[in-house]
């Protein structure tokens, strides 16, 4: 049951909105978490945990630090 990039993006947008209040439509693949969305490392952990619940894919801390953009997370979840 492979999810499309659009489906994952929608899921991530919803998660980011719940955790940070950022509108889901502002969450687009090319955006950087730190520079564009102003999301800090603790929020990234919350997002990773929520993504695990949503997509069943674990993102450990040592992998999380390499995921700089929304696209990086989408790719990680797809693979």
């Amino acid at each position, binding site marked *: 049951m492979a999810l499309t990039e659009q489906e994952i993006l929608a899921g991530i947008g919803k998660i980011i909105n719940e955790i940070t209040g950022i509108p889901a439509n502002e969450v687009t693949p090319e955006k950087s978490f730190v520079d564009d969305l102003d999301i800090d490392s*603790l929020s990234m952990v*919350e997002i*990773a945990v929520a993504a695990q619940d949503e997509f069943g894919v674990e993102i450990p*801390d040592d992998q999380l630090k390499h995921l700089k953009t929304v696209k990086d997370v989408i790719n990680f979840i797809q693979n």
Partner: protein
Amino acid sequence: MKTSQGAPGAKILAFGHYQPSNVVTNDDLSATMETNDAWIQSRVGIKERRIAPDNESEIDLAVQAGGKALAASGLAVSDIDLVIVATCTLETQIPNAAGRVATRLGIDAPGAFDVNTACSGFCYALAVANDAIRAGSATHVLVVGTEKLSQWIDWTDRATAVIFADGAGAAVVGPSDTPGIGPVVWGSAGDKFDAIIIKDRDSFLHQEGQTVFRWATTELHPIAKEICERSGVAPADLAAFVPHQANLRIIESIARKLGADNAVVAKDIVLAGNTSAASIPLALSRMIERGEVQAGGLALLLGFGAGLTYAGQIIEIP
């Protein structure tokens, strides 16, 4: 050999609390380290905290809080036969705090011991007080959570200096015909012992923020639900949820996942900072004082922190 017989249950008769008078705001901290009010409020949720002066010790804080709880309980000091102090920031290695706190309060020769499980200390100590009364080892117990974290903090380390603070909270526990303190759920993750650590007398408090954050936001909401199940209380029936005041985002995350929709969630960290073992009784005592919760309502207490350890139980609000 005979065995002792205690009361059918135990309940909290009164709370008390004490904070040092010295208020330290985020702007005060910004003057001495690279930080600012907006950053601290969004990352941790704290606006201000209390820091005790050099001549006010963690024992002094405990005595103040304990004295207030005793006065509110209506008991005589001679009624107290056990004193338990939860603390991890005691300056002296030996003796413990409990004996000195008892003496200063005029409590004559009670059982006296300390519990060091850091931020889960109050809940561990309360569970033991409950068990002692039910087993007949004690009749009235003074349980205090007290911390002077400021004496173990590196004031140039903004990762810890903006978070930790000083304070004390106390509860007087007595016998009851029906349970006023529910079953404890406690546990630990000793593999993460170095996630929050003061490794020796010459060291400062060090915390692996992301490890603790991930553990707290994943492992603890199932524990909170288990506490509800073991007590036969649904999350919706809780009047209050009082987790350790570690970080506002951890508090909100656990509260959200617990689903205690009718509960007031303690957010004392905003004005008190993270006071480790003191945070839960301090928060709840202040909520009661402000009239945010009513007597007879049920509160879920959930302590968690260094160890890593956790403990929690449901109590009837006095």
